[in-house]
C-alpha cells in the first residue's frame, strides 16, 4: 500500500534501507547515484569511482593531517 501511495518516499526508504543493510556508506550521494543509474551509467563503474574517490580523499586527508 505504501509503495503505491508514495513512490518517492518509498524509493527513499528503499535505498536508505538497502544502503544500511549493505553498509554501502552512501548517504547524501544516494539521490545522485540513483539519478546516474537511471541515466544508464554502469553501476560497477560508478561504484569503483566512488570507492577510488573515497580512497583518494582519505589519503589526501591523511596527508593534510600529517603536514598540519
Amino acid at each position, binding site marked *: 500500500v505504501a509503495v503505491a501511495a508514495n513512490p518517492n518516499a*518509498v*524509493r527513499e526508504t528503499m*535505498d536508505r534501507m538497502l544502503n544500511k543493510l549493505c*553498509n554501502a*556508506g552512501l548517504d547524501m550521494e544516494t539521490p*545522485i547515484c540513483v539519478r546516474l543509474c537511471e541515466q544508464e551509467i554502469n553501476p560497477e*563503474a560508478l561504484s569503483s569511482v566512488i570507492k577510488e*574517490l573515497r580512497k*583518494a580523499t582519505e589519503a589526501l586527508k591523511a596527508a593534510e593531517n600529517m603536514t598540519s
Partner: protein
Amino acid sequence: MARHGPPWSRVDAQQERDVRELVRGVAGLQDEADPNFQLALNFAWSNFRFHRFLDVNSHKIEKTIEGIYEKFVIHSDLSKAASWKRLTEEFLNAPLPSIKEIKTDAHYSILSLLLCLSDSPSNSSYVETPRNKEVEKKDDFDWGKYLMEGEEMDIGPYMDTPNWSEESEEENDQQPLSREDSGIQVDRTPLEEQDQNRKLDPCISWKADEPDDRSWLEHHVVHQYWTARPSQFPHSLHLHSNLAAVWDQHLYSSDPLYVPDDRVLVTETQVIRETLWLLSGVKKLFIFQLIDGKVTVRNNIIVTHLTHSCLRSVLEQIAAYGQVVFRLQEFIDEVMGHSSESMLPGSGSVPKKSTEAPFRTYQAFMWALYKYFISFKEELAEIEKCIINNDTTITLAIVVDKLAPRLSQLKVLHKVFSTGVAEVPPDTRNVVRASHLLNTLYKAILEYDNVGEASEQTTVDEWIVHGHLWDGAREFIIQRNKNVPVNHRDFWYATYTLYSVSEKTENEEKMSDNASASSGSDQGPSSRQHTMVSFLKPVLKQIIMAGKSMQLLKNLQCAESTTCQAGARDAERKSLYTLFLESVQSRLRHGEDSTPQVLTEQQATKENLMKMQSIAESHLELDDVHDPLLAINFARMYLEQSDFHEKFAGGDVCVDRSSESVTCQTFELTLRSCLYPHIDKQYLDCCGNLMQTLKKDYRLVEYLQAMRNFFLMEGGDTMYDFYTSIFDKIREKETWQNVSFLNVQLQEAVGQRYPEDSSRLSISFENVDTAKKKLPVHILDGLTLSYKVPWPVDIVISLECQKIYNQVFLLLLQIKWAKYSLDVLLFGELVSTAEKPRLKEGLIHEQDTVAQFGPQKEPVRQQIHRMFLLRVKLMHFVNSLHNYIMTRILHSTGLEFQHQVEEAKDLDQLIKIHYRYLSTIHDRCLLREKVSFVKEAIMKVLNLALMFADGWQAGLGTWRMESIEKMESDFKNCHMFLVTILNKAVCRGSFPHLESLALSLMAGMEQS
C-alpha cells in the same frame, strides 16, 4: 590535464551536474577550480566511459540478492534476512523518480551499485555493524518515517533522531518500574545516553545544536508533574477533552461559594502509569499516597477530560487494590524476612520456636503469592510497554478492564489471606493456623469452582497443595523436634495412637501431648475443631505413615551415617515425580479424547493439583530427609511445574464455561481418583523402604525368631538345657530361685547355640502370691524372661509384647514341668519304695502276721498298678496338651505369622500383625480371661500330675488307697470336664484348632 567537455553528445547538462555533485559529495571537494577536483572529475568520467564492465545483468543481481539473503539466514539473522528480502522486493516493485516502470535495468543497476559498494570495503564490518542497527531501525522507520513523509524526505540524519530518543526513553522509563522513586530521575539520563549512542554509530549524525533540540526534549522526556506547577498542556478545545474545565465552570457559575482548588493537572497516561506502578508494588507515588499503611488518592489530581470526582472514584477503586497489593506484599516480606514479631508469637513454652523460620504453610503460601505477583508484574510491565510504544490506544478504563480478572483474583487472594492468615489470633499455635489457612483455601477453591473462576482455581490449588504438604512436614517436624531425641521407641507409638483417632486432630493431640509433657498444661481440646483439613482426611493415614516412615528411615540412616543415600533417594524420588507427571499427562490425554469439553477443565485442575501434591509429597519426604536439600529441590520442581503449566495452558483455554460447575462436583472425585493413588504409591514406596531396611539392616525377622526361640521355646534343645537344670533343682528340693543361678543356667544354655542372644537375655524371679505358691504347679510363677531389643526393632517388639510372651513362656514352663516330672518317674522306684517298708513291716510283724501276708500283698500290687495306670493317663494328658501347644498352636501360628511379616507393607501393619499374632497365641494357649475355667481345669490336672509325681518319689508308703482314688477321680472329673467343653467348642466350630486336643483327650477317656 585539459578540461574536457561532455564526452558524447547525448550526455546532457544534468548528467554533467550529477557527476560533479558526486565528486563533490564523495571526495568532499567543493572548489571546482581545485586541481584535485578536476582530477577526480576526469577520473570519474573516464571510468564511466571506458570501463570494462558488462551491462547490468538482472539475473546476476537477483542471484546475489538471494545469496545475501541466504547468508543472513545462515547467520541466523532471520529478521534481517526477512527485511532484506522484503526491501529488495519492494524496491524492485517501486517506480523510480524518472522511470515509472518497475524492475527496470535502472532498478537493478542501483541494486548492483549498492552491492558493489557493500561488498568491497570490509566484509566483517558489513556482517556486524549493520546487523545490530538494522533490526531496530526497520520498524521505527516504517512507522515513524511513513507518517512523517513529505517533510523530511531528503533529510537523512534527522530521521534517526526519533529512533534514538525513543530507545533512550524506553530505557529510562523502564527503570522506575523497579525502583521505588517512581522515575524522578528520568529527565537526567537521556542526554548522556544519547551522546553515547551517537558516538557508537558514525553513520548517524545527531546535531545537538539544532534549534529544535529543546522542543524535542520537551516532547520526549516526561514532564515533572510531581514537582512543578502544571504547565498548560496542549490539547484540543473539544468539549470532551475539556470536561473538567467545563464542569468547573459550571460549578463556578451555579454555586456562588465555589472556590476552585489548586489542582495538579496530569495526563491520563501519567495516571495509568502510576496505576501500574502502584499495582506492581511501588510505594512512593505521586497520585497515590501511602499513609500509615493505607493507600489513598491525592486529592487535587485532575485530568482535563474527566471531572474531579469521577476521576477520584475510579482511582479510589484502584487504590483499594493497591492496598491489597501492599498488604500481601507486606506478608511476603514478613515471611521472607523471617521477622518474627507477628509470625511466631511467644506462647510460653516455645523459646525454641521463635528462632525458627516462619512455619512452612505460610512459607508455601507466601511462595505462591510471590509467584503470582511476578506474573502479575509481568503483565503490568507488558501494559506499560504498550503505553511507551504508543502502539495502541490505552486509557485508564482499558487498563482497568484488562486487569479486571487480575483484580478479582487479587480480591480473592486478599480474602483468603485475611480470613486465613490475618484474622487468626496471634497466639494460636502453628498447626492450628496452618490448617486454618488450608481450610480457607480449600473452601475458596470450592467456592470459586462454582463461580467459574478457573484461573484462580489453579492459583489456589497451588497453595493448597503446597500448604498441605507443608502442613504434613510441619506435623512431622513437631514430632521430630520433640519426640525422637527423647525416646525413639515412643516416637512411633505416640503417633500410632494418634492417627487411630483418624482425624486431623491428631496434630492437635500431638501438640497437646507435647505440651503437657513439657509444661504439664492441657490446652488441647479447645481448638480441635479448627484443625480439620477436610480434604486430606481420606489419605491422612497414608501421609502420616509415609512421613513417619521417612522420618524413621532418616533416623536410621543417620545412625549409619549414610549421607550418600540421601542423594540417591532424592534422585529416586525425582524419578517418581516424573513418573507421576507422565501418568497425569496420559490421564489428561485420555480425558481429552473421550469428552474433551467437560473433562479438560477438570483435568487441568486435577493435574495442577496432583502435580502440586506430588511435589508436596516429595517435599514432605525431602523435608524429613534433609532440610537444605529442600530449598534446591523446591526451586527445581517449581520450574518443572511452570513448564507443566505452559504445556497445559492450551487445554485451559478451550475450556467450556459450563464444565466448571461439573468441576466443583467432581472436585472430591478428582482428588480421590487422581491424588490419592499417588499418595498411596508414595506411601507404599516409603514404607516398603522402611520395611526393607528394618528387615535387612536391623534384622527384625531374626529378633522375632529369637523371641519365639526363647519365649515360645522353639529353640527346644537350648531351652531344654535351661529348664531341666531348674527342674532338677526343684525336684531335689534345693533352692533354685536364686537369680544368679537362674541367669547362669540361662547363659550357659543360650550361649552355646546363640552367643549373640545370650547377652540380651536375662531372667528374673519375683515372689508373687504366696498363697498360690502352695500348689506345686505355681511354684514357677514369677519367673520372667526378658530380652533386650535394640532400638528400631523395639518399636515392634515392645515391652508390652514381652509381657505376653512371658505369659506364654510361663504356661509352657508349667506344662514342661509337669511333663518332666512325670517323665522322670521310674517304675522301679515305686516298686522298690513299696517293697522296702513292706520288708521292714514284714520283719517286725513277721511272726504274728504270717497269715495275713497273702491278702496284704494283693492291695499293694493293685495300688502300684493303679498308680502306673494313673501315671500313664496323666502322661497322656500332659503330652497331648504339650503337643497341642507346641506344634498345633505355636508352630503353625508362627508359620502364619512369618508369612504375614514378609508381606507387611508398613511398619504399622507389622506392629499390628505382631500384636495379632501374640493375641492369637495368647488366646489359643487359653490364657484369656474368658476361658480361664478351661485353663484352671488344665492347671488342676497339671497340679495333680505334679503331686502325683511328688508322691511317687516319696514312695508308696506315703500313699493311701483313698488318696490314689481321689486323684483318679479328680483327674477323671477334670478330664471329663475338659473333653466335654472342648468337644462342645469343636462342635460349634468356633475353635477349630482345639479339635486335635479334644480328640487326643477323648482318646485318653475311652481307654479308662
